[in-house]
């Protein structure tokens, strides 16, 4: 009798354990064992990478500027099945994630399904597909309803995936995904700027100097790998232009305002980007070249 009870508990424990592990990669060997850590300490890497590039912030700004949607900015999903190496898969996962953010922003739900499918395929290939509830995402996109939920689940899934990669010493893949998001976001911003020049957008493009420096720092950490070296070198071409851009700060104390029970903090310290039209043109041209080379790596 006692043995039966033990067997029962063991069986239930295994089943419960499997359920709680549904969102983990289905590898028998932990990722942390498979992947050796980088030279830079993992917690330092996490600090550097976090929120280095949001898949929706550039798209949100473009939409708020009143710029019309255009599908010519997007990277084609036709190539997904040709991407066989994890390096290409992670990089393009980032590129498609940025495109998905743009599509979500403009409620282009029919195209969203294509990009979700591409993201799911690439995420599965690098063993992080469990973070994308594809059925729910596809249902929300197909029904063209509850678009806030679609946006929330898309971004939240991306964040969870990124966190998982960090916690399993796979920051190298996270760096590639983030690089893809960033390059595609900058490509989107610069392409829009060419047709719709705007001061706010110009400043946002110039501010990318801060992110670019961080991104190169991270990628160089893995540059003993030829592909990472190539990617870092591509971004260094952009950095050479960005080196001529100045970002200065005007100091001021923040103000706290309470209105109708809502607290607002107004920052009076300002960053000012000094960027010329020629630098903007050079960044747009080089970004386009770099982005097109990356999607064909």
């Amino acid at each position, binding site marked *: 009798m006692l043995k039966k009870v033990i067997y029962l508990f063991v069986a239930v424990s295994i089943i419960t354990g499997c359920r709680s592990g549904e969102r983990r990669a289905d590898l028998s060997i932990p990722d942390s064992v498979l992947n050796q850590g980088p030279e830079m300490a993992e917690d330092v890497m996490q600090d550097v990478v*976090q929120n280095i590039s949001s898949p929706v912030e550039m798209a949100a700004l473009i939409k708020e500027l009143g710029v019309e949607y255009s599908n010519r900015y997007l990277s084609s999903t036709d190539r997904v099945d040709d991407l066989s190496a994890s390096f290409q898969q992670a990089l393009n996962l980032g590129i498609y994630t940025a495109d998905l953010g743009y599509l979500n922003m403009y409620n282009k739900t029919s195209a969203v399904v294509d990009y979700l499918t591409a993201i799911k395929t690439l995420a599965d290939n690098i063993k992080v597909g469990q973070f994308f509830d594809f059925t729910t995402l596809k249902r929300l996109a197909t029904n063209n309803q509850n678009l806030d939920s679609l946006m929330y689940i898309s971004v939240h899934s991306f964040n969870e995936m990124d966190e998982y990669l960090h916690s399993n010493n796979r920051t190298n893949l996270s760096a590639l995904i983030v690089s893809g998001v960033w390059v595609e976001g900058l490509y989107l911003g610069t392409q829009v700027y060419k047709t719709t020049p705007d001061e706010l957008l110009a400043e946002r493009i110039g501010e990318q100097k801060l992110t670019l420096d961080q991104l190169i720092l991270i990628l160089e950490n893995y540059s003993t790998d030829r592909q990472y070296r190539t990617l870092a070198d591509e971004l260094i071409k952009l950095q050479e232009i960005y080196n001529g851009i100045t970002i200065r700060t005007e100091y001021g104390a923040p103000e706290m305002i309470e209105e109708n029970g809502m607290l607002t903090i107004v920052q009076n310290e300002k960053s000012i980007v000094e960027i010329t039209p020629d630098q903007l043109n050079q960044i747009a041209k080089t970004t386009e070249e770099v982005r097109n080379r990356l999607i064909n790596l």
Partner: protein
Amino acid sequence: MIRKILYSVIVTFIITAFTAISAQDISQLTAQCAANAGDVMYLEDFVVKLDQGTPGGAAPTQRFAMLLSKNIVYRFSICSAPNSEGEAVLQLYDMNNLIGSTFIPSTGKDYPSFDFKCQKTGVYHIFISFKDGKAGEGVGIMSYVKKL
């Protein structure tokens, strides 16, 4: 011997089951907290679980580094888990300067969120702790409100 094995199996079962429920609860808390942030766009969440601090010591805190952009209004919201002993507080720092907080000690007022009109692109730090250094579990949410 068999009893010892039985006890250890039961304990393992309880811990495993409890952990699974807790992860689900946090996921629901995050979704709920993001929804309560209002008509804004979710960008990032910060899940925190901290032990109680030592008497007389500083309250345990978890830190997150975030890149914020100029001319954007961000909303920072905080939610404590229903079973959390302590009440979560979110603070925003620029370098070593406190810029905003969901709890203002001088007035004793708590806010579920605050908006930050960002004028300087750069790395900021978000600190989450629990009042009086108590143990607790909660989540902070960063959302995009609009451009300035």
